[in-house]
């Protein structure tokens, strides 16, 4: 993928298809350590050991429209081609954790891209699922937790235009703060 945020979107959609109620997405960046790690954890239906082996095989897919599923294999490749790591753990009935770690000063590093848009779209398109988004850099971190938003909103749906706008502004403002203001 041209941006890692697209990989996040893809894996998070797998969580949605696995009937997750809560999806936690963590993006941890450190310029000092030349590192980036992205994890996506869900409480969906999970996978058996056998399915887990199949999911990193590009010739496996649960979809019936084609015989190839490249979401996870390409995410894995994006991490490994920078000298980073990739792991995926799953338990039936408990959920799945997918984690990719990158060496960010490698020539083959794919840019993170517009992760805020990814989060905004995920929340807007899946208003019945809860998302926790944690983004950290050397300067600090912030958290967006839709369970907290729901408490304040008292029944107003997360895909309401005013709410979406608030989420977008919150993400933008917080991102500016953890990037030290200089990059935006």
């Amino acid at each position, binding site marked *: *993928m*041209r941006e890692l945020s697209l990989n996040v979107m893809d894996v998070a959609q797998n969580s949605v298809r696995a009937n997750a109620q809560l999806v936690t997405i963590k993006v941890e960046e450190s310029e000092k350590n030349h590192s980036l790690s992205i994890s996506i954890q869900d409480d969906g239906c999970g996978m058996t050991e056998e399915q887990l082996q199949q999911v990193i*095989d*590009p*010739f496996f897919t649960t979809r019936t429209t084609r015989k190839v599923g*490249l979401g996870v*294999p390409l995410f894995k*490749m994006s991490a490994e081609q920078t000298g980073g790591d990739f792991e995926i753990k799953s338990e039936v009935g408990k959920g799945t954790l997918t984690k990719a770690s990158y060496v960010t000063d490698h020539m083959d590093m794919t840019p993170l891209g517009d992760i805020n848009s990814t989060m905004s779209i995920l929340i807007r398109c899946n208003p019945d699922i809860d998302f926790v988004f944690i983004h950290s850099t050397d300067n600090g971190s912030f958290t967006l937790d839709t369970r907290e938003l729901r408490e304040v909103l008292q029944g107003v749906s997360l895909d309401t235009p005013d709410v979406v706008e608030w989420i977008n502004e919150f993400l933008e403002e917080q991102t500016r703060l953890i990037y030290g203001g200089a990059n935006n």
Partner: protein
Amino acid sequence: MNVKEFVQKLNLKVLTEGDMEREIKDCYIGDLLSWVMGRAPEDSAWLTVMGNINSIAVATLADVSCIVLTENASLDDDARKKAEMHDVTILSTEENSYNVAVKLSNLI
């Protein structure tokens, strides 16, 4: 022109053999697999330096006639096995993608 004739005319090395009688009608160059996946035309020769297992999946999905690993780019063992299993033809050359494409354009 079919794959067999393409191999002979450009003096390519055959790494895995699929359907060598298959026609080559087009050509596509690209290394970003997710990009190539939706864009490489069917029945084309796909020129790339990516010789991993995901490339084989992309070749299957895009239904290209063959993969050409240019500049002697290496082919992983896993990828070779999958290519044999799925009848994907993989060719190899020391020339770069541009030169191969130029020669190919005179033949199709």
